[in-house]
C-alpha cells in the first residue's frame, strides 16, 4: 500500500492563500487552519498529508522525494534550483523581485564598484551577470533595507509587495528583476510512479485557480 501523498507547504506569507486554494479545490482544510504546533496535518478527507516547512526546505523535501508535491514561491525556486517539475503557477502570493536604491540616486551611473544587499544572493548575482555588471553582493538575513540606510551598500535586491517598506526607508524601485508568484512543484519520480493521484491534485488546484481568477 502506497503512503498518502505528501505536500510540503511554505509557512508564512504563502500559507493563507495556499490553504484557501486547497479549500476551493475541495480539500477540507479545517485541520490545516487549526494546526496548532503540529508539523504534519492531513486534509480533512485524508487525501493529502500537508507538511509545513520553511520555503527553502520545501525545495529540499521535494527534490529528495521526502515529499511528493511542494507549494513554494518562485523566488525560492530561483534561489535554490533545481531538479523537480514546476507544474503550475498557482497565481497566489504575487509580488516582484526588484532592484531598489535610495531615492534620487542613479544606480547605473559612474564607474565605481557597487555593493548590493540581498536575501537572495543567487538571484542578485544572476541578474547582474545578465546585465554584465560587476557588483559585490552582501547576504543579509533580516531587513535588507538597512543596507543602504546604514551606508553598507548602494542598493538592495528584494521582494516587494506594496512598496511601502521601501518608501518609508527612502528607497525607490530602480528596475524589476523578475515577477514572483507561488508555484506547484512535483518530485520527478513521484510524478511517474503516482501519475493519477498527482495529476488529480494538480488538476483540481489549477481548476480552483481558474475559478477564482
Amino acid at each position, binding site marked *: 500500500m*502506497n503512503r498518502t501523498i505528501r505536500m510540503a507547504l511554505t509557512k508564512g506569507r504563502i500559507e493563507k492563500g495556499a490553504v484557501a486554494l486547497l479549500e476551493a479545490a475541495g480539500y477540507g482544510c479545517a485541520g490545516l487552519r487549526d494546526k496548532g504546533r503540529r508539523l504534519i496535518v492531513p486534509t480533512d478527507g485524508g487525501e493529502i498529508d500537508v507538511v509545513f516547512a520553511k520555503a527553502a526546505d520545501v525545495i*529540499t523535501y*521535494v*527534490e*529528495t*522525494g*521526502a515529499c511528493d508535491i511542494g507549494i513554494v514561491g518562485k523566488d525560492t525556486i530561483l534561489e535554490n534550483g533545481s*531538479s*523537480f*517539475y*514546476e*507544474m*503550475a*503557477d498557482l497565481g497566489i502570493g504575487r509580488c516582484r523581485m526588484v532592484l531598489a536604491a535610495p531615492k534620487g540616486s542613479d544606480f547605473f551611473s559612474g564607474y565605481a564598484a557597487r555593493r548590493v544587499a540581498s536575501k537572495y544572493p543567487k538571484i542578485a548575482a544572476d541578474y547582474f551577470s545578465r546585465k554584465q555588471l560587476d557588483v559585490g553582493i552582501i547576504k543579509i538575513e533580516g531587513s535588507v533595507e538597512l543596507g543602504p540606510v546604514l551606508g553598507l551598500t548602494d542598493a538592495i535586491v528584494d521582494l516587494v509587495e506594496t512598496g511601502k517598506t521601501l518608501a518609508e526607508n527612502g528607497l525607490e524601485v530602480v528596475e524589476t528583476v523578475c515577477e514572483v508568484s507561488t508555484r506547484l512543484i*512535483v*518530485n*520527478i*519520480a*513521484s*510524478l*511517474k*510512479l503516482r*501519475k493519477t493521484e498527482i495529476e488529480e491534485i494538480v488538476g483540481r488546484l489549477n481548476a480552483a485557480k481558474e475559478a477564482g481568477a
Partner: protein
Amino acid sequence: MKQYNKITPEGTKDRLFGECEKRGGFVRSLRALFESRGFREVSTPVLEYYDVFDTARAYFPQEGIYKLVDHDGRILVLRPDCTIPIARLIGARLKNERGPLRIFYHQKIYRHASGHSGLSGEIAQMGVEFVGGDLPICDVEIVELACRSLRSVCGSDYQLELCHIGYFNALVDSLNTDPATREQIRELVEHKNFPALDLLLERFEGCPAQKALKKLPALFGSVSVLEEARALFSNEAADRALDALADLYNALSSLGLDHLSLDLGLVNQADYYTGIIFRGYTAGAGEPVLSGGRYDELIGEFGPARPATGFGINLDLLCERAEGTAAVPPPRAAVLVDAKSPVTEAFSLVERLCSQRFAAELIPVRDTRDAPAPEGFDRVFRVVDGAVKEG
C-alpha cells in the same frame, strides 16, 4: 586551527559492513547478468583531463565538477560521468575494433554536492555500453537489459520510462528558432514548467508545432500518448521517432516485459542523446535510479564515429532504497588462541572450518583454558597447548 581529521568531506560517507554487503549483493547479481550477455568490464581513471568533458557533445556543466591542476598546469577533473570517458577510451584505444563492443563498468563518479543538501557527491555507478549497433534490435537489447537489471535488484517494484529525442527535435526544428530559445524550450519541457512554456511559445502562434510543444510535458504515461503525439504534430522526422518508439514498446511487450511507460517530454541532455532515451524509477527514491539512451555522435568526438547506446545505474540510491536480497552470511566460528597455541594446529583448524563453509576467525586471548566464550559465534573452539577442544 580547525581539525578535519575525524570526518569525511561533505557529500561523502563511510560505509560499514551491512551496507557494503548489500551493495556487494547487487553488484554480484548485476555483474553476472551483464557477463551472461557477453559484456566485458573496463575501468577508466578517476582523474581525467577537463578537456574530455568540454567537447560539443560531451559538454558537462563545469559548476558540478571537482577540479585539480597537475604539475604542468593542466586542469584535471574527478570524473563526473562514466560514459564520456568510455567514449574517449573507445574512440582512442579501441578505434580499430570493428565489431560490436559490449562493455560494462562499475566505478564511482564525483559531483559537487552543494551546501548540505543531503545529496551525494560520490556516487557508485554500474552500467553498460553497447557500441557498433544501430539496428532497432540493439535498442531492444539494451532496454531489455535495463529492465532485467532493475528486476534483479528491485523485484517488481520498478518502472521503466521510454522517450525518443527525435520527436522533440522535430518539433523545435520546425520552429526555425535560435539556439538560445531552443535551449530555453528544452529546459522548460524537461521541468514540465507549463506556465512558463506557454508564455515562451506565445510568439510562435500559428506554427503547427506550437500546440504540440505546449502539450509535450503532459505527454507521459501509457502507450496511448504516442497516438496523441501523432495527432498533435506529424512530419517525417516526428513520425520516424514515434514509429521507433512504438516498435520498441511493442518489442519489449512481446518479450513479456511490463512496468513500461512513456514520457515524450524526457529531454535531458539533448545534445548527448540522439535517439531512444530511458529512465528507471523505484518507489522511495526521489531521483531516477537508472538512466540511459542512444548516443550515436558522442564517440565521434574522440575518434571514428560509432553508434552506441547504454545505461548507468545509481548503486547508492538503489542500496538506500531497494529492499535487496543480501546473501545469507555464513555461520561464524571462533578459534581461541593464546601465546602457547602452535601455529600449525590453529591454521589447520581454520582451514578445516573454512572447507565446511564457516567464516573462521582467530580470537587472541591471554589463556585459552579459562577465557570466556566470545559472543556472536555459532561454534567456539580452543587450541589448548597442542590440542583442539570445542566449547
